[in-house]
């Protein structure tokens, strides 16, 4: 956990996050996609028009005033690069929503390992709910309850074997 911050983590704290006030208002999406590639499902899937991307090769920008935190982009993004963060869950804990394409699936309420962007173990976290949207539900959209201080660190989960003998 003491490892040096990745490029994304560093830039996140600087300019990619919504304003402090917005972060206290409710869930918002983060598209961790900073390379110009020909792709736009984050834009086409967003029901509120929060994502802008002028030409197909642009990197996406989220208008946090329009973003409703609905998680559609998390399910649609082929790069699995969209996440929804909700820092208003409680004083100590926040919610992180991630795309997940592995079996077995955890169950709601189950304890799983929260991993950072490099796959390092951060903390045990609890699965709050599992949604599926487009794509015949093949990409599951999993929301986990994480400690507030790990909200910009946890971006993946791992099943604990003891729960799935």
């Amino acid at each position, binding site marked *: 956990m003491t490892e040096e911050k990745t490029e994304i983590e560093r830039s996140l704290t600087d300019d990619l996050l919504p304003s402090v006030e917005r972060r206290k208002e409710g869930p918002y999406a983060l598209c961790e996609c900073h390379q110009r590639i020909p792709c736009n499902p984050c834009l086409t899937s967003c029901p509120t028009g929060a994502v802008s991307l002028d030409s197909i090769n642009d990197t996406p920008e989220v208008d946090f005033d329009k973003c409703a935190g609905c998680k559609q982009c998390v399910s649609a993004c082929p790069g699995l*690069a969209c996440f929804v963060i909700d820092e208003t869950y409680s004083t100590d804990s926040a919610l992180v929503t991630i795309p997940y394409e592995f079996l077995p699936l955890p169950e709601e309420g189950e304890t799983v390992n929260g991993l950072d962007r490099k796959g390092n173990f951060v903390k045990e976290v609890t699965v709050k709910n599992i949604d599926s949207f487009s794509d015949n539900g093949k990409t599951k959209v999993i929301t986990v309850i994480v400690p507030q201080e790990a909200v910009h660190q946890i971006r993946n989960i791992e099943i604990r074997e003891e729960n799935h003998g």
Partner: protein
Amino acid sequence: MLTTEIVVIGGGPAGMNSALAAASQGAEVTLLDRNWELGGQLVKQTHKFFGSENQFAGERGIDIAEILSERVHDNSRITVRKNSSVLGIYHDGVLTFEQDDKYKKLTSRQTVVATGAAEKFLSFTNNDLPGVYGAGAVQTLMNQQGVLPGKNVLIIGAGNIGLIVAYQLLQAGVSVEAIIEALPEIGGYEVHRDKIKRMGVPILTSHSIKKAYGEERVEGAIIGEIDSSWSFIDGTKKDFKADVICLAVGLSPLIDLLHPLGLEISYVPNLGGLAPKRDEYLETTISGYFVAGDCAGVEEASSAMMEGNIAGLSAANSIGYKKSFQEKFRNNRDELRKLREGETAKEVRAGLGEVRL
């Protein structure tokens, strides 16, 4: 002797779109593919694709293959011949192919070649040991036939293919020991890299494989760091235990069928190797022979589909099916340009400059 107006060789995204575009203009088309199902590379791609809605962005490769092949099968102007390997094209315009162990001949007025690309191999000591696979073979085994290639895999090459195959192996429950890449930077998309990293797989850049070892089959590999002249740096040797070494070191256009006709080609590393020269309608230097997709230069399924449209429309146009040709051509050309605008397509753009007539 069989006859058709337009023959399309290869039923990947480029070939299927060529056939659909030509048929939509009114032409009679025959589509030949050596595989038992249409789709080309797409039938092995279980991940979601990039691109825009016109190229089915966000859909999985396998699902795109199904959508397109259904459209092809439902089209009464298209005759599909699967299990049909094209063997040769002769100067008198006769094409020969083998279908279900029978040798057959076909003539056509126009030909679209959409045969895709072939995997490159890598030379290192013991690369002939069982357990050394190309990425395509790993995908065929795992995703088409449901057979795991092994338990612990070392992947050579961190382009999109290496990164995606790593992800698919992890999904299948196989352990990926590492991905090594000779260049100082990974070649694949950052988002693909990041999803592998989140799974804890190490990606070692400026590393190459020295040798594989094992008695009867692969048991491991010796890898090391390389300098800018691709020489191994002393003291950087690492030993990785693995029962599979998966090579994902690039593809080269497959246009062997056209060589005997004497078409003009050019060696363009940015397009994967020997690439055919062609005009903006994708017609080669041999009149009546068009190319589309990876066989014209290794790219993406999204661009292969757009090129397929252009080649199919143009082939139909040359034999009198001219319905709004210019407008349709321009739409596809413009969309293709947009796809290629990004920084990840820089090399492709440079390469295309060398083969455009």
